């Protein structure tokens, strides 16, 4: 069993309790997942706060990165949702930094990747969708539901188009969460599988060791790719969030 876990590509996603806590029989234990949420939040917060603590007029390296991430997310949001969209900037920026730092921390060996769990990505997606719905109704009242009735569609087609719009709206949190979750999960499994090949092949000795060069090269290339995916998925999550928020601000296409 112990040996098994070394090669088992699913083992890395196992959640185990660090501090047991079962109020009313519900398992709310502090787990390795909770620990890495805490680490993610600490790393991101401390980086952003410490790097900008000098408030330098001419930024240093780390302050530059903090400013760049700020401008990057701000531009993404402004492009997608306009100036009115900037009221959601704290939320969008928090989501981007949280997902990005969580993805990147997951690249460290033996670190737990919190975004590889569908419930986490789904919860984040639901935060976005609920914000869209609540902000939309708050701002536009019932007119918000014009979102589902596009302009310029013939009367006969309206029921059909509206049904499609509603389905597409409901599928947003699912696609948003599954995209991130599946990318992180698949990437980490692939990495682990190729790394496992290296171990298995090397154990055979001789030709096996030579042959293990192939999965080793693959694992190296995949690591680079996974860093790209870690950033890209955080970006995609942010861009889609911005586009959905645009619906809350400007419903009725």
């Amino acid at each position, binding site marked *: 069993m112990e040996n098994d876990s070394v090669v088992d590509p699913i083992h890395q996603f196992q959640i185990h309790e660090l501090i047991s806590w079962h109020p009313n029989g519900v398992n709310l234990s502090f787990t390795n997942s909770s620990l890495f949420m805490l680490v993610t939040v600490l790393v991101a*917060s401390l980086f952003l706060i410490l790097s*900008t603590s000098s408030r330098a007029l001419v930024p240093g390296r780390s302050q530059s990165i903090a400013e760049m991430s700020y401008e990057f997310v701000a531009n993404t949001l402004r492009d997608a949702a306009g100036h009115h969209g900037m009221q959601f900037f*704290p939320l969008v920026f928090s989501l981007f930094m949280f997902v990005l730092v969580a993805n990147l921390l997951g690249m460290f060996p033996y670190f737990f990747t919190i975004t590889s*769990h569908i419930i986490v990505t789904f919860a984040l997606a639901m935060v976005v969708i609920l914000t869209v719905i609540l902000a939309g109704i708050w701002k536009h009242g019932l007119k918000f539901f014009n979102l589902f009735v596009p302009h310029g569609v013939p009367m006969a087609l309206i029921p059909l188009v509206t049904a499609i719009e509603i389905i597409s709206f409901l599928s947003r949190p699912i696609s948003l969460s599954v995209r991130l979750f599946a990318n992180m999960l698949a990437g980490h499994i692939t990495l682990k599988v190729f790394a496992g090949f290296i171990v298995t092949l090397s154990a055979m000795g001789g030709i096996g060791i030579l042959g293990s060069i192939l999965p080793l090269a693959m694992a190296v290339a995949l690591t680079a790719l996974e860093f790209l995916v870690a950033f890209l998925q955080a970006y995609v999550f942010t861009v889609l969030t911005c586009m959905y928020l645009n619906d809350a601000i400007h419903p009725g296409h």
Partner: protein
Amino acid sequence: MAETTTTTEVAKDTHVEISFPPFNSTTFASQLVWLAIFFGVFYLVIGRIALPRISEILETRRSRIAKDLSEAAGLKQQTDAAIAAYEKALLTARQNAAAIAAETRATLTADVDAKRHAAEAELKAKLVTAEAEIAAIKAKALAEVNAIARETASSVVSALSTATVSAEEIAAAVENAAAR
């Protein structure tokens, strides 16, 4: 043998049951609660501390750059004005210098001319006086020549002969000789 198989089976079964952790719903509650706590705190930290600070930094920089640019533009304007004033002053000075030079030249020329004219007039006057004097002397000399001639003639006559010649005769003879 049979026993080992069963235990493996059992182990495998439990393994299969928890084989895919992301879909293990018993961990959902814990993950959701801790995510809500940590993400909520993160949202507050970002919204209250990090973002205001970064936007303040960027705003300060933007306004500082704008201020510096407008300051530079103002200074440039001042420089241009100073250059224009300098050139104008230079032009005026040059014109003044030319005027003063011309005036001085005119004064000097007039002065010299006046002096020259005065000198010339003086010389001319002296010349006229001298000429008049010469003419007077000449006339006087000529007049005295006749008297000397008459005196010499009467002396010569009285010395050479005993004849008495009157003064009128001698004067007429001298006149005659002079006219010849």
